[in-house]
């Protein structure tokens, strides 16, 4: 049982398995690329629906967690060894291990030499520790934590994300996956002064009860509503239109939801049971202002089959008539096509980005300017054992280590 657990732990904490699993997904991506152009979307869909692939993806954060535990354990063991507390130094903690047969019983002279070349030292009854530079361990931990968060985030997002698309319309109840909320009081599009966003969007929603607090939903960071992120996608206009034609004297009137923002973007509205079709777009105001912020004016083309029979423009509340055709827009309202997304992985992925940046900011200066270098010398009854390890500037450190060993050897020779 112990052997089995040890084998399982060996797999979970292996350095090689994460690249292997990532490589497997890369191969899968390449394989899918032969079949479809929408490779990434297809890969995500297959991973979401196939239990084997979902488990494979779940292994990645597991391996990262395994590495965190394994490397923390090694770090603590090494610290204990360097503190001179360890009865025996486990194998594999250091880069080099040497045993010198020696009767030398003092490491004081060696301590002086190592002090002189810039190492910090600690001398105990039977051990001398020397070190310099900062450890890369914190950066490594941040990196592994970032990897854990990234893959856990992707796994959670891929396997649990739910999305509901609703249309938020001024004056109508706020749509949500869990039933309608309060009335949408206003949709305000404004200019933003931030570094990244050029526009601000506020959807003001009255509380569910009269006199309740008005909630605001903006662009970014996304607000939450009943556990779901509110993700505004596209702007549009809800237009109430009335239409009559010489061959349609009874007329037609209905609401249309038009995705016609920004100005110039066209949307088509069929007049059911007739050969007529309206092409509508927002007119650009002469003063250069945003057409969404003031009174909206609509450009239209009326087509009968393929033939254009009428073109013109009319504002909200306005009317246009010509040659027996009559078209009016009694009411228009702003609307936002909005996704309500339940996804617990988003925060983890953002956290991973922060952790990666922090890890990079710590690792680079430490590795370049003062990498960690360590040596340990332990006096044993008939020999001296020495260990050495360096995270950078290995050549120089190895030179110091070898000279230290030479010093000990010379001491032995002098004694004999």
């Amino acid at each position: 049982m112990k052997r089995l657990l040890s084998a399982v732990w060996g797999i979970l904490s292996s350095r090689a398995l994460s690249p292997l699993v990532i490589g497997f997904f890369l191969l899968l991506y390449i394989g899918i690329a032969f079949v479809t152009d929408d490779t990434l979307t297809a890969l995500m869909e297959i991973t979401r629906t196939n239990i084997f692939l979902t488990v494979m993806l779940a292994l990645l954060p597991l391996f990262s967690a395994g590495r965190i535990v394994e490397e923390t354990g090694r770090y603590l063991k090494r610290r204990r060894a360097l503190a001179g507390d360890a009865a025996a130094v486990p194998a594999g903690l250091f880069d080099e291990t040497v045993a010198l047969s020696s009767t030398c019983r003092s490491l004081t002279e060696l301590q002086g030499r190592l002090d002189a070349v810039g190492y910090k030292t600690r001398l105990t009854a039977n051990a001398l520790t020397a070190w310099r530079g900062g450890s890369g361990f914190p950066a490594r931990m941040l990196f592994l934590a970032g990897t854990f968060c990234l893959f856990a985030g992707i796994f959670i997002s891929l396997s649990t994300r739910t999305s509901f698309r609703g249309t938020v319309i001024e004056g109508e109840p706020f749509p949500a996956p869990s039933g309608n909320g309060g009335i949408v009081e206003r949709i305000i599009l404004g200019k933003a002064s931030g570094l990244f966003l050029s526009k601000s969007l506020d959807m003001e929603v009255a509380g569910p009860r009269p006199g309740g607090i008005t909630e605001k939903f903006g662009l970014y960071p996304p607000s939450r509503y009943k556990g779901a992120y509110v993700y505004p996608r596209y702007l549009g206009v809800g237009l109430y239109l009335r239409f009559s034609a010489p061959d349609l004297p009874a007329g037609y009137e209905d609401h249309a939801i038009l995705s016609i923002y920004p100005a110039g973007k066209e949307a088509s509205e069929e007049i059911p049971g007739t050969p007529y079709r309206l092409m509508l777009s927002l007119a650009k105001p002469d003063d250069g202002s945003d057409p969404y912020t003031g009174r909206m004016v609509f450009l239209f083309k009326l087509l009968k089959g393929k033939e254009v029979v009428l073109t013109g423009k009319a504002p909200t509340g306005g009317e246009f008539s010509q040659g027996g055709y009559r078209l009016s827009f009694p009411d228009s309202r702003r609307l936002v096509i909005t996704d309500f997304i339940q996804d617990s992985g988003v925060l983890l992925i953002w956290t991973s980005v922060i952790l990666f940046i922090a890890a990079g900011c710590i690792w680079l200066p430490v590795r370049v300017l003062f990498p960690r270098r360590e040596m340990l010398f332990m006096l044993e009854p008939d020999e001296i054992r020495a260990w050495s390890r360096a995270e950078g500037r290995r050549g120089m450190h190895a030179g110091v280590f070898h000279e230290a060993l030479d010093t000990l050897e010379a001491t032995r020779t002098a004694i004999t």
Partner: protein
Amino acid sequence: MVAMKFIPHLLSWLGIVLVLLRGFPGRRTVVTVAGSAGFAAGLGGAFVFISSTPGDFLFSIIRDLVGGGLLLLWGVSVAAIYRSGVRDFPLSWGERLLSTPLYAGTAALVAGIPAGAICACRLSGTEGNAPAFLLLVLVAVALVFAALAAEKLLPPSVTMSQAGLMAAVVALLIFSSSAILRLDLFSPLTMKVMKFTHDFVHQFFESMLIPDHLFIRDYLWGYIGFLFGKEVGFWGGLFIWFTPVVIVALAVSFERLPSVAHIRRGAERRKIMAAAIRARRIRLVIPVLAAVILAAAVYKSRFPSVEYWDPKPVPVSADPTGEILIPKKGDISLEDGKLHKYLFKQGGREARFFILTTPAGNLTVDLDACAICKPDGYGQAEGTVICYYCKTLIPLETVGKPGGCNPVPIPFTEKADGVHIDGITLINNWGNTVQATTRIKEGGK
């Protein structure tokens, strides 16, 4: 002149044999026999396949095989760099396998088969007959003997890691295939990178709930828009292309030097270290050479020595009913298998299209643009048309079918007097395609 076309392939073959001989010291006979057999088998198999099955199928198989080699090199290079950082990486069984004659023979056979098949593809475009095939086999065997002689002249200190050996073989195969337009790997790779980047950015925005480009500052969207351009395809392609050999070189550079802490004579220590460092430097030569060969393959891909047939578009107009008529015969024969370009203008709008008779004898009318790239148009060469924007090669057999980087097909009617096309449909199709591709290239999602 025909023989000149084989020079890149035969040089690559010579290089492959040379590298294999040095990479498997003491296995000269196995490498020589297996390599020659592989080359002959690849050449013969592909020769028979091409003779019996016309079309582009074999070309795509060989291209995918060579691409698979690059992918495998990626895996090997990552394993190599992992191994270089760990002194006791548990791969002793693998090392035992690498030193067996079976492995050396298999490696030579596997390298020889695609090398021969690539040569057969060149043969198909020129003198595809049995004497030419036999002559090529003889030349290939002669080159194996030349490689045997050349290998003896190399200094014994020139050694290579297994990853370096593979890098060199894959680079030489890629170089050989890049000399044939239809086997070129780099251009399709850049296309795939472009598509991946676009998909990735789109998915990232969706996953992280980032607002659409309507709400993002222009300068920022300008940077994001850069990710959708062909430059990203090119640079991303270069990254994928060169990274494995760079990793192999890094793996060699990071190889741990032998532990000399147990040696108490400084001079001896320094001697051992100096020898190890010198050997490590020499092992860097092969990955560096592989990088140079890959660079040559990229150059071949970007500037192929092929002249594209790209006629100036002929202006055409529609009759009062809006129909365009292109006669089948006349100054231009639509059935000559060549691409014929036309320009149609109406009411300030214009559309560029071409007519082509495919090798199967079917007429096809297509926009001189695809649904993905900017409408830089197409040229025709050696059984394919090429998209000038992304350099993707489209086999003539698939022109007229929609999807990917294929030209957008246009409905038409073929009558005795010629080809009839609806002008409005043509203009609208062009407008929609150009509008969509321009939006994508300028950073729209």
